[in-house]
Every structure is written in structure tokens, then in C-alpha cells.
């Protein structure tokens, strides 16, 4: 396992060169929330706006032809990034959340009835829980959760047990947990779920930035991820679906762009992929996303993953060595760049605020995994997440700051100075 040439990579990310409010240089370790953008992405979007921006699929003029070509090339790039057999299986959505909602509405409303079960993991983030709760409210189905063990792990045996017990219509799970950092065996669990006749949705929001997605090898029915977590723009994500399934389910959002024909009596839907892209799509964002995927591919997803593993293990080992720190997640060999932790007697927000003074940006809170935090009996954790541009020196700065947190907030026999006595003596 080896590290990337971060000196070179960091030159590609203008924002990494700044200081935070305290004057310290930025160590950006909040990548699981959102990543930063390389020049390649900023320039591609800027270039579109400056030279050829127009609406797509509509105008018969030069700019529209050029924009349409760039937008559809972005779809091709994305399809090739995830090894999709057909380009029309790539739907541009607003993000992971919008993509899962589309499946819950379009597939869910037509395939799920009372007493059916949607199976998810206890570690899912809210985007892969709430749309299913909403589906349950509409259809009377139930949402069931696969639990984790005391080592924050979910074994094949437990997944098999829950598939067998609930015979779910849908098994929807994250390829990697945004809180625990765990990377799950996507291919194996998909195959197990298919044996029980379940449709499978993979939430790849935390996997797409860090590992090679191969939709054909994974064989899942739906796979979704967000642009902003793969160094791409906000406001765009990908909904991949198997072609026959996307053709069978109805359109979700209605409007311009997704219709073949509209009359006063009704409408007929476009073919894929336009069927699921109502309204003016995120054109420039798609172009930016394609630039991001090309950028990551040129470095190599396997090399990026290896880099994160080295840094993640340094974080994991370093945190476990600090007195009073508890790592919330499995052992380092079962995760990559994400580490969540608790510090005895210090609230996660105070940790994050204190670390900001060292220039270290981390996430504090429940990371949109409230059921998971409830299962663990904690309200908030602190999370450090590494990406391709992070360095061992930044990890060490994190560890130094975490070491100092406890001494800052440890009880030390402080006495409050009474306001009233202060006033009367002054």
C-alpha cells in the first residue's frame, strides 16, 4: 500500500491552500460530508458557461447542439466510470437523496403493498431510510433494519437471517457506511438478496469516491451516488438502473423533457434516460461531474483507495492510542478513510470547534444516521474522513489536536466567579 503524490494533487485543489479563521492552514478532513473540487472541474464548468452554455435537447442552434453534445458525453463518461452496459441506464438526478426518492416513488409505489418489507441496515443514512418510511406511509409496507454486532460489524449470517425472516421486496443498503466507515460486501449481499427474490438498491454515496464501481459485477438493480462526494458539483447525482427495470417502472417527476407527447387528456413518456429527467437538467453540473470522474480515473480508483487506507489506519491507530478516546467503528482492516470517535466527557461540537482552531475540519453530530446513533446510545460523534489530497502530516495534526482536547475541557476544580459578589466588590 502506498501513498499518492499529494504535493502534486494538492496543486489541483485551489481551496486547500487557505487558512482557517484561527490563522492555521486548513486540514480538510470532512470529505465524507463533501469533497473539494479540482481545477479540472472548476474549469470545465467555467468553460461551458463562457463558451457554449445553452439548454439541451431543445434548441436548433449552435450553442444548444454543443451543450447537448457535452451533456450526453458526460452521460457516456459516467456510464463508462461505473461500467454500465448501456448509456441510457445512467439517469442524472439531483443527488443520492433525489435518486433514492425516485426509486421509492416510481418502483416502490408500483411494486410494494401492505405487509411487504423494505430491508435496510441500521447504519444507513437518512436518505436511505426516510424515503422508505414515506413509502410505508403510502402503501402500508414495513421498514426493517439489519442490526450490527458489538464490534460494529454486520455478518453475512445476519444478513441471510434477516433476508430469510422478512423475505423483503427490497434490500437497500449502503456500500460503505458514512459513520462507521465499514465497507460492505456488495456483490455477495446483492446475490444473496436476489436469491430471496428481493430487488436491490445500492447507496454508493460513500463508495463512489473511494472504490471502483462495476455495476455489472455488483449486479444490483439500482445504484445511486452523488456528484459532490466525488469532487464533482453539488446538485447532481446518478441513478443507475437496469434497463428493463427502468423501462418497466413509471416516470416519477412530470414535466418538460420527459414527454414524448402531451395532449389535453394525458401524456406519453419519453424513452430512457429522458423519461426520468423532467425539466431542464443539471447541464453544467453533469459536465463538471464528468470532469471529476475523468480526474479520479486518471489517478486510479485503486490507488486512491490504497492512499485512504494508509491514512485511515493512521487515524484509527492514533485515536485508539489516546487516553479517553473511543473509536466508533470496526477495526481498520474493515474500513478505509472514515473514522468516527467519542472523547470522554467532551461533546462532539466542542471537539469540532476546538479542532477548527488547529485548522482541522471534521464533522460533528449524528451524520444523518440517527437510528445508528440511537442504537449505539450516543447523540453525537466526531468524524474525520480522509481523501486523496490528505497527507500523513494532516492526520498527525488531527491527532495532536484530539490529544489536547481533553486537557482543555477536563474538570480541573474550576470555580465560577459569582456575578453578584463581583459587582459588590468592584
Amino acid at each position: 500500500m502506498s501513498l499518492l503524490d499529494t504535493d502534486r494533487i494538492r496543486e489541483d485543489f485551489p481551496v486547500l491552500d487557505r487558512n482557517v479563521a484561527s490563522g492555521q492552514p486548513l486540514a480538510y478532513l470532512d470529505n465524507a460530508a463533501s469533497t473539494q473540487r479540482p481545477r479540472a472541474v472548476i474549469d470545465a464548468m467555467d468553460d461551458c458557461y463562457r463558451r457554449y452554455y445553452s439548454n439541451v435537447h431543445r434548441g436548433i442552434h449552435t450553442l444548444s447542439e454543443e451543450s447537448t453534445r457535452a451533456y450526453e458525453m458526460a452521460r457516456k463518461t459516467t456510464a463508462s466510470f461505473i461500467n454500465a452496459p448501456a448509456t441510457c441506464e445512467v439517469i442524472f438526478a439531483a443527488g443520492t437523496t433525489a435518486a433514492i426518492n425516485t426509486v421509492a416513488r416510481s418502483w416502490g409505489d408500483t411494486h410494494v403493498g401492505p405487509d411487504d418489507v423494505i430491508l435496510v441496515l441500521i447504519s444507513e443514512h437518512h436518505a436511505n431510510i426516510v424515503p422508505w418510511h414515506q413509502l410505508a406511509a403510502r402503501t402500508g409496507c414495513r421498514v426493517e433494519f439489519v442490526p450490527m454486532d458489538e464490534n460494529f460489524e454486520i455478518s453475512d449470517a445476519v444478513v441471510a437471517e434477516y433476508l430469510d425472516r422478512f423475505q423483503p421486496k427490497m434490500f437497500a443498503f449502503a456500500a460503505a457506511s458514512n459513520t462507521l466507515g465499514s465497507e460492505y460486501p456488495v456483490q455477495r449481499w446483492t446475490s444473496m438478496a436476489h436469491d430471496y427474490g428481493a430487488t436491490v438498491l445500492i447507496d454508493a454515496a460513500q463508495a463512489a469516491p473511494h472504490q471502483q464501481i462495476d455495476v455489472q459485477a455488483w449486479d444490483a438493480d439500482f445504484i445511486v451516488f452523488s456528484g459532490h462526494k466525488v469532487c464533482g458539483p453539488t446538485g447532481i447525482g446518478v441513478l443507475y438502473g437496469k434497463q428493463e427495470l427502468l423501462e418497466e417502472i413509471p416516470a416519477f417527476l412530470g414535466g418538460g423533457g420527459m414527454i414524448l407527447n402531451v395532449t389535453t387528456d394525458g401524456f406519453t413518456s419519453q424513452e430512457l434516460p429522458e423519461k426520468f429527467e423532467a425539466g431542464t437538467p443539471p447541464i453544467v453540473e453533469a459536465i463538471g461531474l464528468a470532469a471529476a470522474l475523468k480526474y479520479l480515473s486518471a489517478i486510479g480508483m485503486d490507488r486512491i483507495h490504497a492512499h485512504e487506507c494508509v491514512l485511515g489506519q493512521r487515524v484509527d491507530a492514533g485515536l485508539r492510542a489516546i487516553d479517553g478516546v473511543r473509536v466508533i467503528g470496526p477495526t481498520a482492516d474493515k474500513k478505509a478513510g472514515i473514522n468516527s470517535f467519542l472523547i470522554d466527557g467532551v461533546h462532539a461540537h466542542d471537539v469540532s470547534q476546538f479542532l477548527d482552531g488547529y485548522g482541522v475540519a471534521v464533522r460533528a453530530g449524528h451524520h444523518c444516521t440517527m437510528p445508528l446513533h440511537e442504537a449505539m446510545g450516543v447523540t453525537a460523534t466526531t468524524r474525520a474522513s480522509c481523501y486523496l489530497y490528505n497527507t500523513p502530516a494532516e492526520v498527525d495534526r488531527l491527532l495532536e489536536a484530539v490529544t489536547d482536547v481533553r486537557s482543555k475541557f477536563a474538570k480541573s476544580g474550576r470555580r465560577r466567579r459569582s456575578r453578584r459578589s463581583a459587582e459588590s466588590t468592584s
Partner: protein
Amino acid sequence: MMTKTQALRAPVAYFSTPFYVSTPMAHPQDNPDDQDIYQENVLDHYEDPYNRGALATATHAHDGKNPLCGDKIHIDLQLDDQGRVAQAWFEGDGCVISQASASMLLEELEGKSIDEIQSFSAENMLQLFGPRLTPNRQKCCLLSWKVLQGALKRPVGTDADPIVTENDEEIETDPSFGGPSLGEEQ
């Protein structure tokens, strides 16, 4: 309170510098010595809070929480015949800012009349706390202030609205308070 229209018109110089001109962001604290929001006084209140505990003789009480960070505050008040706060106690769990600010608030307002408490604004609360806070942390600081205001309307042992205040709605007195939530991205 300003009407919506007034609020929109009020900041005359809002775009005196075109909003698209990139300038270095001003930090609320120019003096680095003051940047530490965990000043000695704050940590003192956190470790040695004023009137932490339950009050058996409470006439008014209320609960509140910041659902996104898990800060919790419960306040017990005992109002006397003149409508003054004879005693104020709190219990809670959460970050330093939320707990220290509760201690400061109760110490400040014990003995005050209902009118005085009601006219104690969010801005007053932030001033009482001292160190300048970013909008995200203002929520932590203002939790106890909201709970106290709520407690005045909730006599113990009646059917007064028992709903727990969830400190995530806009704070009405000033639109600049509140800030973005810390929770909703993954």
C-alpha cells in the same frame, strides 16, 4: 417586530460591494486573543454551574432541546407573589456553550420580573455569554434563553402546553440568528 417587507428593505447597504466580488471573508473576531469561545469564564460556568438541579417548589417549568446536536435543557422557576423569579434552576446535557450559557442566564435573571425577562432579547443573551459565536453555535447559546421564555408561559400542574421546545425554528426577534443546521448532510 419588523414586518417582512420592512426586513427586506431595511439593509440598505447590503450590496454596497457587489455580492459577486470576491473578498477575503471577515472573521467575527479580529483580535486573535478573543477568538477562543471557551474563555475562562465560560469554562468556569460549565464546570461549576449556577443552580444546577431540580427545584421541588417550582411554579413554572419547561424543557427544550436542539434536536440536531442533542443539547438538552430543563428549567424550573419559582415565581413569587409579585411575579418575580424567586429561584431558577436548570438541568441539562450537551456542549459547553449550551450548558455554560444556561448557568449564566439563570444567575443573571434570578430576582427579575416577568416583564424584565420577556424584554431580555436574544441579542442580550449573546452579549451576556460574551465570546462571539458563529450562527451554528448561537443555537447552542440561545437554547436556555428560549426554554426560559417558554417556562414563563407554562405553570406547573396545569394543562398548559407541555410541548418541548425544539430549538430549530427561526428565532423571531432577529433573522440573523439561527444559521444553517449542522445536521442535514450525510
